[in-house]
């Protein structure tokens, strides 16, 4: 099977970028976009359809089994993990267009700098002064909230998230739900002002993030749990 990969190439954030087209062959139907990128990088002499050298494609990966979030890219317009995107799913179109996540500073090609996410969690004040208290009631919520990969896919599709803006998106409120639902009410109160500014005040409830999460987190449910505690002061 032959796929036409159109891959965004850009030396650094200041240089111009363009799509480079590579024909990629595989007979293995288990292969994913991540496999294709790995194999291309392992083939030093590779050329694109115009006979130009491909060189090493910048992208990030680590676990290759959708548990670490490193390889998030935009595939034919939709953000997702490269290791979670089987080439066979594009069999009809045979063209796969790969672009970097657009809301983060670009490092090179498909590789972006997501350090802002770590900064956002600090601004939300996600630290615990006391101990977490888990019960049969809140345990599952904490599990779900702790699954967040910090990959950034949810922010890519969010109409309210703009780089440098006040709203932090699902990548902020998903982890926060553990803090709100399993710490004391005093701690929930401490978290409230930042929550109002960076989450509640900015979310337009489009729920575009709902179906995009590669970890399959029930984002909808977590948002209503965190709103219930932070905004309405309901019991956990």
């Amino acid at each position, binding site marked *: 099977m032959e796929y036409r990969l159109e891959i965004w190439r850009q030396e650094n954030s200041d240089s111009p970028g363009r799509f480079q087209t590579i024909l990629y062959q595989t007979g*293995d139907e*288990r*292969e*994913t976009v*991540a*496999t294709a990128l*790995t194999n291309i*990088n*392992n*083939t*030093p002499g590779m050329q694109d359809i115009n006979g130009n050298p491909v060189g090493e494609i910048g992208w*990030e*990966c*680590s*676990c*290759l*089994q959708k*548990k*670490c*979030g*490193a390889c998030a890219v935009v595939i034919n317009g939709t953000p997702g993990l490269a*290791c979670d995107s089987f080439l066979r799913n594009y069999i009809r179109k045979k063209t796969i267009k790969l672009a970097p996540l657009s809301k983060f500073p670009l*490092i090179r090609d498909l590789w972006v*700098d*997501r*350090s802002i996410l*770590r900064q956002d*969690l*600090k601004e939300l004040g*996600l*630290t*615990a002064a006391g*101990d*977490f208290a*888990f*019960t*049969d009631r809140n*345990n*599952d919520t*904490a*599990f779900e909230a*702790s*699954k*967040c*990969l*910090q990959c950034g896919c949810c922010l890519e599709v969010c109409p309210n998230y703009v780089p440098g803006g006040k709203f932090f998106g699902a990548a902020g409120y998903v*982890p926060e739900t*553990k803090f709100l639902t*399993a710490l004391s009410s005093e701690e929930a109160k401490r978290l409230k002002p930042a929550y109002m500014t960076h989450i509640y005040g900015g979310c337009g409830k489009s729920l575009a993030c709902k179906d995009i999460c590669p970890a*399959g987190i029930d984002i909808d449910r977590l948002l209503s749990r965190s709103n219930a505690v932070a905004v309405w002061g309901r019991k956990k």
Partner: protein
Amino acid sequence: MEKVNIIGAGLAGLSAACSLAENHIPSRLISVQPSERAQSVLAAGGINGALNTMGENDCTENHMEDTLRAGVYIADPEAVRGMTKAAPGIISDMHRIGVPFNLKDGKIVQRNFGGQKKKRTAYAKSSTGKMLMTALIDEARKHEMNGLIERYAHHELSGLLIQSTESGKRECVGVTVADTYSHTQQSFAGKTILAFGGMNGLFPGITTGTTANSGEAAAIAFSAGIRFSNLEMIQYHPTTIGIAGKRCLISEAARGEGGRLFVMREGKPWYYMEEKYPELGNLMPRDVVSRESWFVLHDPTCGDQVYLDMSSLSKEVWKDRLPDLREEVMHYLGIDPAKKPVPVDPAIHYFMGGIDVDICHRTNIAGLYAAGECCSQYHGANRLGGNSTLGAIYGGRVAARDLAETLMTLKEEHEDTENSEPEGNAADEKPGAEAVLSIGGILKESLGIVRDGEEMENGLEKLKKLELKASQSEKRRLYLAEAILLSALYRKESRGAHYRRDYPGKNDAFRGLVTAEMTEDGIQIGNMAAGEQ
């Protein structure tokens, strides 16, 4: 106060950084990727500790005995005693800082795991590593905000700064790191803890681990003269599935919850583990299970595929304890494990050997520590499932504690250094893809579940040939690869994960560590009793 450098931000690195911060000691937490991407997030089945919540009269001595026995008595009993004693406290600390372990009536429940007769493995469904990591990342954030932890999350180790003092003592005085975004290099003075994980990248594409653990850091450390031990002890996990680009683990929890291994023989499934080992059956230690799988696969009367049958697991188990495992198998293989047996194969999963450390996690170089999977300490010849998340968290703490004591008692008694220019190990280009793949291929051929001297000698010869056209960084990788083969050749016996066709028996002349060290005269292999460092 001078900052401590920590290389690696998985469980071991995070644990070390948090422990240092609790002692008001600042650190730089340096990792090639942020913590969310570390291999530790993959840990599935759980973490061991004799909490004794299951009414089985478990105690930390039992945990210690099981660990030593599974490691075939080459781990330091005192170190293992320390870890197993600390385990219940570590699990409750993790619970307190935010790990949602599975609970029953408010108590942490524990499951069966291989090589242990008692239910001793605490878990959060089958995503325990991710839960531990999220909680430790949250804990570290607290110290980042009060300035005690400084993150360098896109920085790769490029060298260790090692000085020789007048008395000939070698001391690590800092590290050099390369910023992967800007390609600039920086040096950071200070004592250092290495926590860079396993050497998965030496076996590209055929381990259950991550690509980010490239083996580069281990190669740098080895070439800098840091002593390694038990490099030949490489764990094959019996149940993995082939997905694109890697082996994907089916956690031992699958067997802990009732999964059974079989192979077809004379038209019928043969549950070989249950027949051969009536007591522990499918839950024998991993070295035994992988080897038995290898034997049945090489038995002409048996079929050529081993299967894991999980069809007897209850709905509750799938829902509450292994939902993520089921989802993964369905996603990658299109097989519902609740309904159909899953074809599985053994694959490389863990490195028991690594940087040789003493009971306080000090290396042979003053001022340099190692913790987590990159070091060789608790697991001897074979690691128990659930003991490495524990060993990583505990090891990070022990190293931090020792460092804290050292730093606090340090009274300007520094010897003058001989050469003011530290003999670093500067970064150059990375090894090429071709070299990495060739070295990996050779190691794979020579270091299977069943090994033999001739094959390993052949492998060594092939590696030597590659040296001729290798770049500096490729040479470092080759030296480490050669050291693994030399260690495996040196250990002329079969013990734990190291099984040799030409020496199939255990020989207590080798009841200890096989050490490997790079010196001016090349790679030196030797032996030493554990705990003698």
